[in-house]
C-alpha cells in the first residue's frame, strides 16, 4: 500500500533503460515532470447552443527533467547518456516515480526529443531534457 503521507518529491526519480531489463536512475536531477494528456475531437454543431462539444481523442504523454552536470557518476545515467539517446534516436524504456515498493510509478517507452545543457560562469553547469512517450503509459505499484 502506498504511503498515506504526502510524498517527498525528492523520492521521485526517472530511470532509463535500453533493454527494459537494466534500469539506471538519471543522476543529480533537480526536477522531474510527467505530463499525460488527451486530445479532444470537436463535435460542436448548430444544435450546440453556442457551447463547444467534444469527444475523446488521442492520449499522449511526455517527460521532462533538469539536473546538475556530472559526467562521472557510477551506477547512474549521466548527461552524455542522454545525448547519446538523442543522437542515436534510440527507443528508450523509462520509469517515473519512487523506487520504494508499493508506491505508484509510471512506465513506458519513447524517445528523448531534446537535450540541452547550460553553463554560465562561476555557476553550476546544468542539463535538461524532454522525452516523448510512444504507445501506452502504464501506472502500477512498484514491485
Amino acid at each position, binding site marked *: 500500500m502506498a504511503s498515506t503521507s504526502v510524498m517527498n518529491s525528492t523520492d*521521485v526519480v526517472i530511470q532509463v533503460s535500453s533493454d527494459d531489463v537494466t534500469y539506471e536512475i538519471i*543522476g543529480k536531477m533537480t526536477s522531474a515532470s510527467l505530463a499525460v494528456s488527451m486530445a479532444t475531437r470537436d463535435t460542436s454543431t448548430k444544435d450546440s447552443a453556442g457551447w463547444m462539444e467534444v469527444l475523446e481523442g488521442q492520449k499522449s504523454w511526455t517527460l521532462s527533467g533538469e*539536473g*546538475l552536470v556530472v559526467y562521472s557518476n557510477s551506477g547512474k545515467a549521466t548527461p552524455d547518456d542522454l545525448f547519446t539517446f538523442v543522437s542515436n534516436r534510440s527507443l528508450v524504456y523509462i520509469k517515473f516515480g519512487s523506487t520504494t515498493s508499493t508506491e505508484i510509478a509510471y512506465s513506458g517507452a519513447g524517445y528523448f526529443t531534446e537535450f540541452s545543457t547550460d553553463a554560465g560562469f*562561476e555557476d553550476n553547469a546544468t542539463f535538461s531534457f524532454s522525452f516523448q512517450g510512444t504507445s501506452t503509459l502504464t501506472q502500477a505499484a512498484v514491485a
Partner: protein
Amino acid sequence: MIGKVIKYKFDNTSALNDVFGGRVYPIIGAQGGATPFAVYDTTSIRTEGSKDADSHIDIVNVSITLVGTNYGTLQTAVDDVRSTFVRMEETILGVNVQTCMFDTVSEVYNVDETTFGVEIDLNFRIIKN
C-alpha cells in the same frame, strides 16, 4: 568550515601575512587591539542539491572586514585579498574550494577609534560531494 580557508590563506600568503601578521579573527576583533587586523564571518550559506544529495555545492557568502589606521594600506590589502581568494581552486584543511567570486566592498571610518574599516564580500563555492 570556510573560516579555516580564510585564516590559512591570510597566514600563508606573504602579501597578507606581511600586513596582518596573523591578526585574523572570526566574528569579532578586540577593541583597542593592534592594527591592522581582519575579521571574517559567514553571512549565509545556500545549498545546491539534487535528488541525490542535499548539497553538492555550498554557496558560502563571507564578509571580511579589514581594520587599520592607514587607508592606503587597507586599499592595497583589498587588492591582495581579491588576488588571493577570487577564482581560487584548492583544498585547504579538508575544505574543497571550487572557486570564489568577488561581490562588493564598502568602507567606514570610526571617529572614536580613528580607524578605517573596509568590508569585502566574497562568495565561495565549496564542493560537498
